[in-house]
């Protein structure tokens, strides 16, 4: 065992085999350069419009990646048995009934093959529009229209066949917002985004659970997509039952307290990340999506930030970060001041602390740890017990027990207030896993402050900082875009304008065609 540890620490001639994503780019911007030069990445060329149905078939097969995109239907048939045709639609987005009854059936039995007469006399669809633009055709198909290619036709006919099913959608339970969409993941991930690729596959192992890997082709870095697939393929334990298990199987470090993959139940949040070039994995039977790679700043953002106006969004974020800092540092800082650096407290504060602790029997450090533990217990109990009782436990635990503890001289009121403020700050963190990780850091700070005051806190903070600085999620540094700096400055504490977001997220090496607004 000792040999193993020594080998791991001092391993000679063995490279670090971690997957690196940022390092495929030539460094990072220097401090005086904020935007990338235009045209740094080449734009894709559009193919010419196909002249025959067969040509269209081959073209669309490649464009839509039908080898992995199984929902696309490319239906070849002949009009009246004489003219070749191709109907293209997306399964689940277009209505099968409309296509069968009002397009395929009349066309196959039609006596005429002239395009104009087909439109006027045969096809029984309300809205028909011609199109030669391949991008427009792809958009339409993804949106539920059916594209009809006829041999020798100068344009394709876009037929209105919308017909996706709408199931009842429940509100998000853990990621609530005041403004913005309320629905959470309950249905399959269908969206009208250009180039969206949804690869479905069975998870490795014997339980036959289906996974969907969602990314935006042409925007997401292919090496990132391959890395996600590689890790999913490697996770062969036969126990992929939920997104939580999948997350643990493919994350970078199992011991690092903060999550390295974002688990979200909000489709808008997942979609905004996919738009920005990240990869999303959905597991059949789990009501949340996994987004990767992520950074600390992604975890601290709420989907609501972007729905608010810019100054309000910035204020919200500032409050949130302040809350998080208070949550992690306040108990330790107070303890350090009270135990080692009393000179930093005014006489009034010091005498108040002393007065409130007069009859409390345990040391202040133990008191702080005890109250933090009770706070975590109340929180856990509130989560686990059903419905209204959970709220009642919060009230009983928070108010009545706190009051009773002070009256019984088990805790002092000042320490109780510090723990309550820190708990409140903890709830400002939008991500549940990050909230729990913050609790670890908080406890570490309290122990360090108890042992060595501010110097102890400094050492603990530096250790935490170096853990964060050295961590990577799928090759992306955990503190980017701040450290290291990247061209795209979002997400950071100050929210940028919507117009400023028209750049691809180079932290994940996204391609520069990404022009849509990201909701971070």
């Amino acid at each position, binding site marked *: 065992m000792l040999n193993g540890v020594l080998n791991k620490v001092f391993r000679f*001639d063995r490279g670090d085999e971690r997957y690196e994503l940022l390092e495929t780019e030539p460094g990072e911007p220097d401090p005086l350069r904020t935007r990338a030069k235009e045209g740094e990445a080449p734009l894709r060329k559009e193919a010419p419009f196909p002249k025959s149905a067969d040509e269209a078939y081959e073209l669309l097969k490649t464009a839509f990646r039908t080898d992995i995109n199984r929902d696309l239907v490319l239906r070849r048939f002949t009009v009246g048995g004489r003219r070749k045709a191709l109907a293209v639609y997306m399964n689940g987005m277009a209505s099968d009934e409309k296509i069968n009854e009002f397009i395929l059936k009349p066309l196959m039995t039609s006596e005429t093959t002239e395009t104009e007469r087909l439109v006027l006399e045969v096809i029984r669809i309300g809205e028909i529009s011609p199109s030669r633009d391949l991008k427009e055709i792809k958009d339409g198909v993804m949106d539920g229209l059916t594209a009809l290619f006829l041999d020798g036709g100068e344009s394709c006919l876009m037929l209105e066949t919308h017909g996706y099913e709408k199931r009842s959608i429940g509100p998000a339970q853990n990621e609530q917002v005041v403004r913005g969409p309320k629905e959470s993941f309950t249905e399959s991930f269908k969206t009208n985004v250009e180039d969206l690729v949804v690869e479905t596959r069975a998870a490795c192992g014997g339980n036959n659970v289906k996974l969907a890997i969602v990314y935006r082709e042409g925007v997401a870095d292919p090496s990132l997509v391959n890395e996600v697939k590689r890790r999913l393929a490697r996770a062969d334990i036969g126990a992929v039952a939920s997104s939580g298990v999948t997350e643990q199987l493919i994350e970078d470090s199992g011991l690092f307290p903060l999550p390295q993959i974002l688990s979200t139940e909000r489709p808008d949040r997942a979609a905004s990340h996919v738009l920005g070039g990240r990869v999303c994995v959905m597991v059949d039977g789990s009501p949340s999506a996994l987004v990767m790679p992520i950074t600390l700043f992604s975890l601290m953002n709420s989907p609501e930030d972007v729905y608010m106006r810019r100054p309000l969004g910035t204020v919200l974020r500032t409050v949130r970060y302040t809350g998080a800092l208070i949550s992690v540092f306040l108990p330790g800082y107070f303890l350090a001041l009270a135990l080692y650096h009393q000179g930093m407290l005014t006489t009034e504060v010091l005498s108040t602390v002393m007065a409130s602790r007069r009859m409390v029997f345990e040391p202040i450090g133990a008191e702080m740890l005890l109250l933090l533990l009770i706070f975590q217990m109340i929180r856990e109990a509130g989560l686990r017990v059903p419905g209204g009782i959970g709220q009642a436990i919060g009230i009983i635990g928070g108010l009545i027990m706190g009051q009773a503890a002070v009256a019984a001289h088990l805790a002092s009121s000042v320490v109780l207030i510090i723990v309550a403020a820190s708990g409140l700050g903890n709830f400002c963190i939008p991500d549940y896993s990050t909230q729990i990780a913050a609790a670890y850091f908080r406890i570490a700070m309290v122990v360090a402050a108890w042992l060595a005051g501010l110097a102890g806190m400094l050492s603990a903070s530096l250790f935490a*900082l170096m853990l964060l600085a050295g961590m990577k999620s799928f090759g992306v540094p955990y503190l980017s875009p701040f450290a290291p700096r990247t061209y795209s400055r979002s997400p950071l504490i100050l929210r940028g304008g919507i117009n400023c977001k028209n750049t691809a997220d180079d932290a994940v090496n996204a391609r520069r065609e990404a022009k849509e607004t990201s909701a971070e």
Partner: protein
Amino acid sequence: MRMNEGRIGVTGAAALTSAAMITNGLFALDPEFAYAEGNSAYIALPLSAIVSLFAALALFASMKRSNSADLYGHLETSLGRYGALAASICIMAAFMYCAAEPMIAFLRVLHRLVYDGVSYASILFFVFPMVVYAAWKGLETLSRSAIVLFAVMLASFAAAILAAAPDLEAYRLYPIMGDGSGHFAFLTAAQTLAFLPPLAAAAVNMKGMNGVRSAQKAALYASVVSAAVVGAAELALSAIYPYKVLSGLLMPLYRINFLSLSQSYLIRLDKLYITVWLGVCMLSSAYMVFSASHLFARCFGQKDVTPAAASFSLILLGILLISVKGGRAFLSETHRALVRFGWIGMIVPVAAASLLRPGKAGRKA
């Protein structure tokens, strides 16, 4: 190969270099020597940073010509195998001086002013492991941590100087250039020992900094920022305390707010400031230890930097313990000599590497 370099950008490299330069410039300053003959530190220190920058730029230009991957490669092509070894030993010694000197100053302040009478060993027990851990983690982690801490450090300097603003008096700057220009020039030259090693460290870690151009840029930004910060801090100090008072203070910057805000709550933030500065100092020491280890590994063809990092960390621990616990006359004499003449040991190999033309091997490359 496990050299723990990774790849860092210009911002990270500049932040790391700058943090080390500011730490060495402000906290490793010997007040007895710096304020011996007047208040000239606020000019001499920034000037010294600029002189160091020019020396570093000459070195980088020479490295560009020899097309070397890092400093050791360049030393080898310019000075030959044994010359490179000798120069590397001098540079490693300078790195270790820069790792130890500010740490010693902080240990003394913590021992005397923050944790009243707590033993040095106890303080080191909490502070030193983080230096070792940072040095072991390597360049990427160091640079990213430096970006975060550097911003906090700048904010703390700005807050300290602004809080001291009501007490700044121009007459205390007298005598402006010191009592003689001789001491001013001597101080400027001597302080290159504080500023040049971090710049040379950029040359050592050039591969991780994406080549000579990025390292050059980082050195330029770092020197300008350091000169500005060190100059501003020293100017504020000189305008608060007369030089005769400053020469007797242990880490004068720690007392920047003592006079002006003695009755205010803000005075109580001094311990918070010193905690932040200590954090930057720990990072800077770790960077210097890592750079020394990296240079050592290159010198002796090692493929893993961690054993060297562990050894240099132990050496640093030894230096710290001997320095703070010593009290022997020869130690203080050695220290005095290092502060005054140590710069020669750094500038000579750098000048030789910059001025000597590459040998056959270098020209071929």
